[in-house]
């Protein structure tokens, strides 16, 4: 049994952006599964839907790194999160409940909130009241993180999903 009994007690901590996105090995050619979670304040991140248009650049973003299970329940307007803890225990929580609890504590005047979270059942997420007036972007489908390095050495962080949506 997990010692975590309340969502508020989850060890949801601020992380270095590269650590949050699991980009710590620059020799890795493709994303891999990992269970890390937390949040980071990222000056610029690109949201990629795989289409022909350039990825959407989101500046000054509060990025929440979260996970859903591939075999999680199909919910029309919510996602069941899972938190695999360092002690081997795991707990679940609905995204809506998690955001209601944690967003008020995390918000700090950022320009946007981005959910890095697989949404395998394509739930259409309503806008959480706890987001206030801050735009909140969420994906549908799998989400993977990438670090793109241009010929001139410029770097960009990119989150790839089937589609990105603005919660309304």
């Amino acid at each position, binding site marked *: 049994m997990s010692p975590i009994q309340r969502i508020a007690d989850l060890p949801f901590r601020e992380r270095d952006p590269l650590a949050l996105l699991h980009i710590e090995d620059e020799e890795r050619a493709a*994303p891999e599964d990992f269970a890390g979670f937390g949040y980071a304040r990222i000056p610029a991140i690109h949201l990629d839907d*795989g289409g022909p248009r350039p990825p959407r650049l989101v500046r000054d973003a509060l990025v929440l790194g979260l996970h859903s299970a591939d075999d999680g329940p199909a919910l*029309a*307007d919510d996602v069941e999160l*899972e938190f695999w803890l360092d002690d081997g225990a795991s707990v679940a929580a609905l995204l809506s409940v998690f955001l209601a609890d944690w967003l008020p504590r995390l918000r700090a005047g950022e320009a946007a909130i981005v959910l890095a979270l697989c949404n395998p059942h394509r739930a259409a997420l309503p806008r959480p009241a706890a987001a206030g007036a801050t735009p909140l972007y969420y994906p549908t489908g799998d989400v993977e993180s990438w670090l793109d*390095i241009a010929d001139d050495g410029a770097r960009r962080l990119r989150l790839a999903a089937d589609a990105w949506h603005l919660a309304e």
Partner: protein
Amino acid sequence: MKVLAVTLALAALPAVACTNDRGNDRWATTENTNVKIDWDKVNEAYKQAEGPADLERRINEIYEGDEVISIAVQDQDAKTQVVTGFFDKNSNGTVEDGEKVFSIQRDVTGEGQAQYQTMGYGPYYGYHSPVMSLVSGMLLGSMISHAFSPTYVPVYTRPYTTNAARRGEIHGERSTYRAANPARFQGKPSGTGRSYGNPGRRTGGSPGRSVGGGRFGLTRRPGAPRPARLTA
């Protein structure tokens, strides 16, 4: 997910040459055209399609080969719909042996609930998607969402099939689409003027390169229990 780099000869390929090693690999490649089918996008196209014509358009924008993929849609009963993608090699508007590319079967399983699964055929034999859930209220196109309506009546008890005239239209539309989207084949624009190569979604690219990070989903070990849900 893995990226498959197996090459296959499309025209002369005996089915036995395609083993189940391909399994659920998301990509398949054929040698003669370097054709890739992104199955995630095919599955997504069905979810989002507003009808057979819209599905034809979406599928052929996904498919990167020269052939046009025709579509056959048949409602087998009030619950089950089968969509077949095929190369209509003899242009007779019917699905024949050796022409099938994929099939998608959708089954209504309860009130506001359904599931669907995609299978590959011919050069794509061996691909099979997981059985994917559909729930009323998801972001779905009307081709699926109509099935959740209490007044739903199956429309395609008499099958819809892409006819020769429509194939010509699709070819023209796709040519226009490809001309308008060269970045898909020649490297994706960065929006900054920099070249980041063509990293695609899950692959590295050149010039420039892409470093893979993590996937924000979790795959549970077989038989492992689901954790308890915290409610507050």
